[in-house]
């Protein structure tokens, strides 16, 4: 048993010991009469949205918080992951006494459409053919993801969300909610995110997609039907992307030029600790993620441009959202979605006269800082949420 699988086994054990605060969840299947209209044209019939909930919806249905996940996240925000057994990806924020306390809020987290954890995506069965969608699945957008969430909120009888919260791609969903459905959003929290994908963002995504598509087992996207798995391509995609989630100082501190063995192998084994770490990241990722989902979701990210549908002026996008309370957070060492991106959002919010708050948090942990224990982030989130809750008349 090597270090990686030992740590996996340990995490699984810890995961099963953690008391989850989960209060419900499942898969909502929408009747064929309620298809999801898609931004790129067409619609998805028989839509399924997988979700988890924490806490209970209060009588006047005013305490609902929607948590939106990032590219490779899922609805297991505070529940052990069914495949890896690891604790939920935002467990440190959700729980008694934490910023998102289930005794105060009804917290919902959905798997985005296009995903692979139960919501309709390219690995789902196309009802028209009885076969996995594969590349016949329509290209989806952040707007489509949000519209599917809106449909779920409608089914749950939630007319207005107390808060929409998300980091990275989740932050984009929060912005999309606030700009498209301002009357249904009381507050929006956007962490380590951006109002659009830059050329560099698209470039890194393209590397990932090309790695997947170069894997012979990808089979033109039809691997599910043909019984193969493009694991190598997906692993490489993850390895490249994972570097963008970290920072140079953090990598240097954690790995430096440390070798795995006493000496180099004079070959192409994983000599350096960082190589072995990345290989492990890639290898474990393929156990829980679908290659085609990775293509579709990165595409949705690349297509995201909040200003585009508002004449190219970001401030215009927020014009209708003036009554939404916004909280924007960024991290100093995040070079995937750097602070300048968050400042663009804040400048546009100010131009629109919206209620904007913004903090740039000092951290050397890179983009992934939003998933880690960051005291200033937690203090800012907790403070923002509890004061907004007071304004909304929610009991502490």
């Amino acid at each position, binding site marked *: 048993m090597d270090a990686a699988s030992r740590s996996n086994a340990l995490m699984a054990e810890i995961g099963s010991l953690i008391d989850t605060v989960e209060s419900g969840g499942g898969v909502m299947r929408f009747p064929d009469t309620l298809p999801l209209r898609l931004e790129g044209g067409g619609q998805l019939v028989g839509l399924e949205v997988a979700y988890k909930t924490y806490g209970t919806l209060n009588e006047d249905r005013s305490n609902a918080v929607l948590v939106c996940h990032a590219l490779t996240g899922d609805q297991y925000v505070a529940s052990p992951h069914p495949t890896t057994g690891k604790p939920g990806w935002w467990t440190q924020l959700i729980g008694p006494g934490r910023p998102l306390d289930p005794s105060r809020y009804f917290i919902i987290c959905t798997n985005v459409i296009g995903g692979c954890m139960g919501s309709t995506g390219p690995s789902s069965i196309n009802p028209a053919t009885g076969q996995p969608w594969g590349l016949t699945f329509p290209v989806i957008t952040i707007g489509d993801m949000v519209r599917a969430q809106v449909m779920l909120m409608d089914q749950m009888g939630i007319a207005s969300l107390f808060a929409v919260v998300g980091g990275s791609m989740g932050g984009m969903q929060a912005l999309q909610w606030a700009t498209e459905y301002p009357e249904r959003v009381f507050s929006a929290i956007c962490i380590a995110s951006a109002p659009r994908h830059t050329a560099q963002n698209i470039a890194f995504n393209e590397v990932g997609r090309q790695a997947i598509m170069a894997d012979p087992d990808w089979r033109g996207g039809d691997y599910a039907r043909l019984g193969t798995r493009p694991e190598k391509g997906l692993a490489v995609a993850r390895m490249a992307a994972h570097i963008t989630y970290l920072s140079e100082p953090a990598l240097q501190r954690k790995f430096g030029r440390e070798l795995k063995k006493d000496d180099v192998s004079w070959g192409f084994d994983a000599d350096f600790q960082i190589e072995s770490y990345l290989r492990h990241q890639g290898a474990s990722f393929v156990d829980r993620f679908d290659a085609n989902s990775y293509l579709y979701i990165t595409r949705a990210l690349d297509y995201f441009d909040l200003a585009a549908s508002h004449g190219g002026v970001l401030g215009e996008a927020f014009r209708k959202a003036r009554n939404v*309370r916004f909280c924007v957070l960024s991290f100093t060492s995040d070079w995937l979605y750097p602070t300048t991106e968050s400042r663009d959002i804040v400048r546009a919010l*100010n131009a629109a006269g919206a209620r*904007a*708050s913004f903090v740039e948090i000092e951290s050397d942990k890179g983009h992934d800082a939003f998933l880690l224990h960051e005291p*200033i982030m937690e*203090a800012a989130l907790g403070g*923002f949420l509890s004061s907004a809750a007071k304004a909304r008349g929610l009991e502490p």
Partner: protein
Amino acid sequence: MSGGREDFREILRLVRPGTRVLDIGCGEGVLLEMMAQEKNIDGRGLEISPSGVAACLTRGLAVVQGDADRDLADFPTQAFDYAVLSQTLQAVREPRRVLEELLRIAERAVVSFPNFGHWRVRWALLAGGRMPMTGSLPTPWYETQNIHLCTVGDFVDLCDELGVEIEAAGAMAEGQPVREINPRSFMENLRAESAIFLLSRRTRTDGSTPEDRRPAKRASNDLFE
């Protein structure tokens, strides 16, 4: 470098109820919260320290992290009725540009700063030959963040140069009520330990005067009563 209570009480008194106020260098949001509670203002803040912003969020305030030199440019023109800069002007890199920005962003600016023309300051230099340490300048020279100290006279000169109208001025001293002053008086430049100014732009491109710009709906007109 937060302003004393006299400072806050005076700003609170100057600001008309129900207006939009930007507090630059708002710290932990004490003044913004007072203005929101007592004057029902719609407030925003700009604060340089992340922990300060986090404290503001806990108070339910809308505050953006940033610094006066760099980030005022992000605020749209004439978005506020008041821009407040309390005991911060002397610590910015470009006071002249910041002052111009205040009056671009807001109809009026409330600016307070320690007066380097105060007799104690002059005395410390004249008699002791040392940089002064007084109630409003408590930090030794090697630790102070004050890089652009000025006197009341200097500030008045800058306002004249920028075409800024001084609507009112007051002298402040620790533990004493604010006293309205003639900011052009030689004696007041000696007597004021710290000063507070209510400013507006003298002329605008549309040729309107400050009087024209005064919103009609506001009943109270008493600035220094």
